[in-house]
Every structure is written in structure tokens, then in C-alpha cells.
């Protein structure tokens, strides 16, 4: 559950990151179209919010929210490190993380 | 001539910094303490809850005043506004002690 929370946060930050003009350019070589940028940002926020759900489910409301808040920092840190040293991996890993976490959770 | 002028400016600069710092440190704490004491009596909550709420809030008030001390456009304005703000809880406490 915690891994799922982490994966969703990671994904969410990846999406938000690509929604910033400068970083989109870093990864794809061009600035995003306005609609694409809006969608990336919306998706990012939705993913971040949804990450609270597995945390609350596993640990109860108050402690779950505390976990979610600290996982947010960790996930953001991971994305920033990735972006600084291997920007090309950001989209792939951001898309792949939640399904992988879900898979790990189900087995 | 130029040297005296700039050293005078430097002295004035240091004075304003000192004035703002004094306000932030003493005034900030004083304001927070006054509000803490005043709100503990004024808040419409059961007594222990009012004390808890007032004490917990006081640090935010201290922080706000410290930021104000340095952000105000002039030192005079900083001190004047801070004094006015402190007067409110001070007056309340004085009235309370006069009644009791």
C-alpha cells in the first residue's frame, strides 16, 4: 500500500514536472501545447490526491495523511534527481510506476 | 567630505537595523505574550481550551510581527503600527485587572 502511494506520488510529480515549459523542453525538446500542458498539470494533481487513498486505507486517516505528506517529499526528490541527471527517463518511469506498484501489491 | 557622508549613512543604516531588530525581538515577543494573555481570557471556549488555543496561536503572531518589523516601509511606521497592535490586548488586560 505504501509502495502504491509512493508510485502514485512519483507519477503525479512526473506529470506536473512535464507540465512546466522548461522541463518539457528538457525532456522532449519543445514546449508543450497549452492544452497538453493543462492536461499534464491536471493529471499530476489528480494522481497526487489519489495517492492519499492507499495511505489512509493502510494506516487510518490521521497517520495516513502524515505518511502521504512525507511520501510526497520523497517522490518529488526522486523526480528532481531523475530530471537533473537522466531527464529522458522521466516519462517512462512515471507511466510505469503505478502499474508496477499495483502488480507488486496484488501478488 | 564624501567619506564623512558615507560613514554617516552607514551609521544611520546600522541604527535602522538595530531599531528593527529590537522591534522584532522584544516587540515580537511582547506582542505575542500580550495576545496570549488576552486571548486566553477573551476566547469563547472553556478555560483550559482557551489557554491552549491562545498559547498555540501566539507563535504565529510573534512571527508575523517580526516579519512586519523588517518589511514595513519605514522604521517609524514599523514601530507605530506595532505599538497600536500591542495596545489592543494591553488595554483589554488593563480593563480586566481594573474590574477584578
Amino acid at each position, binding site marked *: 500500500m*505504501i509502495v502504491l502511494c509512493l508510485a502514485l506520488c512519483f507519477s503525479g510529480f512526473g506529470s506536473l514536472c512535464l507540465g512546466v515549459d522548461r522541463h518539457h523542453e528538457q525532456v522532449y525538446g519543445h514546449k508543450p501545447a497549452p492544452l497538453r500542458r493543462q492536461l499534464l498539470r491536471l493529471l499530476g494533481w489528480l494522481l497526487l490526491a489519489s495517492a492519499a487513498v492507499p495511505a489512509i486505507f493502510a494506516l*487510518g486517516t490521521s497517520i495516513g495523511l502524515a*505518511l502521504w*505528506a*512525507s511520501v510526497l517529499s520523497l517522490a518529488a526528490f526522486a523526480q528532481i534527481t531523475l530530471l537533473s541527471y537522466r531527464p529522458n527517463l522521466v516519462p517512462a518511469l512515471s507511466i510505469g510506476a503505478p502499474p508496477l506498484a499495483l502488480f507488486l501489491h496484488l501478488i | 567630505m564624501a567619506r564623512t557622508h558615507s560613514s554617516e549613512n552607514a551609521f544611520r543604516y546600522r541604527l*535602522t537595523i538595530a531599531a528593527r531588530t529590537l522591534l522584532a525581538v522584544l516587540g515580537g515577543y511582547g506582542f505575542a505574550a500580550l495576545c496570549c494573555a488576552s486571548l486566553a481570557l477573551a476566547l469563547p*471556549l472553556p478555560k483550559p481550551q482557551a*489557554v491552549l488555543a491562545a498559547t498555540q496561536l501566539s507563535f504565529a503572531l510573534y512571527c508575523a510581527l517580526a516579519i512586519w518589523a523588517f*518589511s514595513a516601509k519605514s522604521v517609524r511606521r514599523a514601530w507605530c503600527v506595532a505599538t497600536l497592535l500591542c495596545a489592543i490586548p494591553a488595554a483589554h488586560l488593563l480593563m480586566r485587572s481594573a474590574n477584578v
Partner: protein
Amino acid sequence: MKPLAFRQANAWLHTWTGLLLGWLLYAIFLTGTLSFFQEEISYWMKPELHTAGPRDDSARLALAQLEKHAPDAAQWNVSLPGPRNAALQIQWFEPGERIGKGGGQRLTLDTSSGEPVQVRETRGGSFLYRFHFELYAMPREVARWIVGIATMLMLVAIVSGVITHKKIFKDFFTFRPAKGQRSWLDAHNVTAVLALPFHFMITYSGLLLLMFMLMPWGVESAYQGDRQAFFSEAGGRGGGGRGAPIDAPRQPVKPAQMTDLAPLLAHAQQRWPQGIASLSISAPNTERAVVELRQRGGDSLLERGNGERLRFNGVTGAAMNAPKATPTPAASAVYNVFTSLHLIRFAGPPLRWMFFLSGLLGTAMIATGLVLWVVKRLPERKKLSGTPFGHRLVEMLNVGCIAGLPVAIAAYFWANRLLPAGLEQRADWEIRCFFIAWALCLLHPLLRSHKRAWLEQTSFAALLFGGLPFFALLQPSSSLITTVSQGHWLLAGMDLALLASAALLALATWHIARHQAMPSKLRLTRKVTQEAAA
């Protein structure tokens, strides 16, 4: 003086509140972050306990020892081994003794045999914890005031930092490595913003934990200074919480056979996901015996993260109703949530590691800020003939604290390993080693150029940290290979953390070694200008 714009004024305020107390705040943050694992560190620092393996019936062994040592005690306490501390500890209070946190008699038991074991005297992780808010070698109140004032300034630094940071959302993901001052600013911004809710929470909750000392004026005005009255009306420190403490019976009572505790323990184990933390028996071996089991961890921050307590009649084994938990009022709830988040007594290992990493980010935030202050002023310094005293002082304190404190901590751990177990005042000597090492690190930069000082201290720290797990190889039961293969994660985790710290410090050393000071063209220009002026 021309009035500064709002952002600029706050930038100035941020720089000065940050600089003046940055070194103290760094120490507070680093020791505080380590304190999240104080129990684990304490256990690691008692190698006598590492050889024993855990047993399912440790409670039974403990009770047998209590029966042997104190059959007529007023209260028995047993601290059961858990994921944070694999030690089994018993404590008892004789009739008439005041029952409190300290006091009573204690024994640590070997978990496999149940026999008392002689453990080396050490303050363990709690030295770091106490240092975090009470420093050392000064009256408690003085230290708490110093830490309290530093925390109040930290709050101002955080708020002014947020006000100053113009592009807080736009620059959220920005980190540009290897670009000198730009990189340091990015690093400072990233470490600050990433965990901003944590930094704000930990600072404000730190203030709340000290608030009755720092801001007693509410109690003064509402209760005319009668703190006892306030605390009893508020219901404990912050109000709320479950269960009343067990009272010791006063009149002599008839002895009675106690019920078998095994089914009670089994019931509790099933009920609580993290297991039983401790068990207490008041008036054992009498008709008034009451057994209280405490949950490990907690369910809700509103209740201060305290776990549930189950009480049973000691003779019949019947469950006793816990006093009805009243809903926590709002102001108390706020206090409980904030303080629980600071102390994280409720947290299991995964959440604890998360908070630890956030704490490290905060420590990095302070460190990068201090370094940034120096780096930012390098260009203007090149124009002067020498380094101003203030700048030199900041440089030396930076090295002595940012690199020096890790050296001191490693020295503390090494002292724990190397000092003879029977040494008089052993715990004090370990702490002396910590301070001697730190003092040397603060003086060392006096004798060295800035870059050399950094290099020597970070590489030394890396060696010290890395050496500890290797030293453990000398004791086969404690070595990393053994602990990992046996799944003894309490010890393995510590050794891995030491290795990771060593790796980080080694990486830092490598970066510093590679660092190019100033482009030679500028150096040449300066030399020409100096010669022309002469």
C-alpha cells in the same frame, strides 16, 4: 536608508536569521533527525544484547524474573522486545515508592535465557535526543530557552524564505548541477521546498512542545499562574488521551494467585497489528492485581498517537472496561496532532524512515544555506586583498559544524565500541569523546585552507562511518552478513545506514576534490591590478 521592497527586505531577514543561528539549527536538526531512531541506536550501542535471539514467550520469562526479584512489589513493568528495540526489560517499584517514569529498579534480560545481563553503561541514542533540545552541560531551562529562541528564529527564517522565493512553483523541479552559486541556490531551494510542510510542521510543533516555558502568559492570566490547576483541568499536558494511570493500593491486601496471562497476551497480539509494547501489573500476587497491556504504535494522532490499553483483573482474567474516551476538544486535538508528529512515537518503521529522510532534507537545507552564504560572496571577496574576518569565521564554522558534527557523531559511536565495558563513568566518557572530536573539528579549519579543511573532515567522517560496520565483523554475531541473513533488521538497518552515510560523505569528498576554485583568467587580472596599484 532607501526602503527595501517587501521581497528584498525578507531576503535580508532570511539571510541574517539563517546565518546567525544556522550552525546551532544544523546541530539541532541533525541530532533531531537521528533521534527518530534513538531506540534503534541505543540498542545498537549495547552489543551485549545482540547475541540473543528473540523468543515468543519473553513475557513469561520476564514475569518469572520479577517473581524472583520482587514478589511483593507494588508494581511490575515489562517492556517487550519489538522492531525498534529488541531488548527485554523489567522494572519494579517497592510498596511506598513513588511510581513514575524514572525510579524503581530496572533490569535488562537476555531474551533467549531470561537471565539478567550486564550491559555496558551508555546513554545511547538518548544522548542525541537530549542534546537536540537540552544541549549539554548547562542548566536545563537555559538550554531549552536557547533552543526555543533558535526555533522561533527558524520559524521567521522559513516564512521569510517562502516570501522571498519568487518562483516557488515554477522552480519546484529546478536543479542545475555544477553551476557554482546557481547550483547551491537550487539545492537550498529544492531541499527547502520539497519538504516545506515537514519543515514548517517540525518547527512549529517544536515550539508547541516548549510552549509552556516560552509562552506561559496564557496560564498566567487565566489561572493566575496556577499551572497545576491548568494541567489537571486540561487533562494531562495537552488534554485528551486515553486511560487513567493505575493507582497503587494503600492498605495491605490479601495475597492471591494470579491468572495465567497467556490467553490475555494472545488476545492482545491478535488485536493489535504492531503487537504489545509493554505490560504492567499493579499489586501483583494480591487480590487487587490489575494487568494492563499497552499497544505498540497508535491509531490516531488526535489521541497523541498513544496506543490502546487493555486492562484485566489480575486474579480472574476478566476484562475491565477502559474509562470511556471522551472526544478530544479542538485546541487539544491541534496540540496532540502537532506534538505527535514531532515525536512520532506512533510511527512504525516505514513511516519512521520517511520522516528521517525529510529530516535529512531539512538538515541539507540548513547546510546548503550556510554554504550558499559563503559562495555568494566569493566574487566580491576576490576584489579585496584578503578575506574579511567575518567571512573567514563563517567558513570555519561551516566546516566545523557541517562536516565536524558527523565526525563527532562517528567518534561517539567508535567510543561506544572501543571503551572498555567496565570503565568508570563510561557513558560520560563516550559523550566526552563526542565533544572532544567536535572541538577539534572546529579548531582544525584554523590551520588549513578552506578547501583542504572540507576535504580532510568529510573524508575522515566517511572513513569513521564506513569503519564501524567493518569493526562489527570482529564479532561474528553482529556482522552485517550475519544480521542480514538472520533477518535481524534492527542491527542490519543501522549498519546499512552507516555505510550509506559513509558513501554520501565519500561522494561529497570526491565533489569537493574536483571543485575548481576560480577561473585562472580572473586570478591573473587581479594580480595585474594589484601590481599596478603598488
